[in-house]
């Protein structure tokens, strides 16, 4: 399984941190933070996040992978990205 490079992981981290106000000050945001339980994930943020992942990592996320468990944290998203990249590499 291809690993997600640390710099890509940081980009994703910064994308979320800078797009969800809740992480501005009091709430600490780390790679394992569940964004669904700590803030309101609006439909528009969800779409932007999805577009970001697809453009940044050159993947297409199929409908069945668009589930909370794959998007809940930076760690989960990286797992999904590396799984999808592996599938595409073998396709």
């Amino acid at each position, binding site marked *: 399984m291809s690993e997600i490079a640390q710099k890509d992981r940081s980009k994703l981290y910064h994308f979320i941190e*800078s*797009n*969800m*106000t809740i992480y*501005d000050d009091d709430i600490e945001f780390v790679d394992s933070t569940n964004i*669904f*339980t700590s*803030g*309101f*994930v*609006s*439909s*528009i*943020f*969800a*779409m*932007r996040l*999805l577009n970001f992942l697809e453009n940044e990592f050159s993947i297409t996320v199929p*409908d*069945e992978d*668009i*589930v*909370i468990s794959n*998007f809940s944290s930076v760690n989960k998203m990286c797992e999904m990205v590396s799984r999808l990249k592996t599938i595409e590499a073998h396709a």
Partner: protein
Amino acid sequence: MNIKLSDQGNIKGANKKGVKCIVWDLDNTLWDGVLAEGDDVTLKSGIVDVIKGLDERGIVQSIASKNNHDDVINTLRHFELDEYFLYPQINWNPKSSSIKIIQEKLNIGIDTFVFLDDQPFERDEVAAIHPDVECLDDRAYLTLLEKGRIAHIKTSDDAKMRRIRYLEDMSRQGDEADFEGTPETFLAQLGMVFKISEATEACLLRAEELTVRTNQLNSTGVTYDIEQLNFYMNSPAHRLLVCELDDKYGSYGTIGLALIEIQDDADVIELLLMSCRTAARGVGSILLNYLMMQAKNRNNVLRANFRRTDRNRQMLVTYQLANFRQISKTKDNHILFENDLSIISTYPDYIQVISEL
């Protein structure tokens, strides 16, 4: 001769979709004369009535003209017509690219566009790139209001406000582009108020219009006419809800609709739709959140009928990331979602939600 040519220019002659946007050329189309050649241009006879007539029907208008921007704007101001054109594209680029920009700004389907230009070359250029755009010559304005795709459109009071709403959107977008900070901080200073209420007789025409016009954010693609909506409005087993959105720039009007069937153990969303104009405000998930809370209060689960099309990915994302799971899917992409309501967020701080129910 010209008329024939333009009729043929429209390859998909079967396009019967209601027109939402007219894009005008200017020189020798909207007015007689060529501005850049120093002509003292005069408006075509009767064209102001056509422009105002289209506007009253809720059809928005724009411009694709190869000209100097400031000269055109001054001339339109002189004719007191400048406010009628949204996102006018006055530049020297191909008109197909101007139309593409207008379409993206307005966020409506390209197959609802009509383009008028006196030059066959320009019509052909647009038709080649956008085969779904109906291209007409300059004389077509005389019969534009009687055209089937225009005359048959029913208009609600909300439709008549459409241009004003887009003008408000243009100032919003200008501010948003200038705004430094996260999109959420931008949303926070908009002072958005989202109101959910039961549909009434007075808003049924707008509700019907929403089901017909909204494509990207319609959960089933089903359209309902007034009689059907009236039936559901009065049915004890159903709830028909409408949503309005206001912010500091003005009102978006009625922008969302939900049809719910109340069963013994489940609330079932038969239809959920949001106007494309407000897609960038993230209000779809707020309505969905509201429906989740309502079902939970009744100790019901929440199910939703959904038909996946190539245009409603945002709706699918909204459902699935609100923890709706697919419990069945047919060959024609009809999905039944179910949410056990174990995860329900609170509304975000940047919007005030009012429900008069």
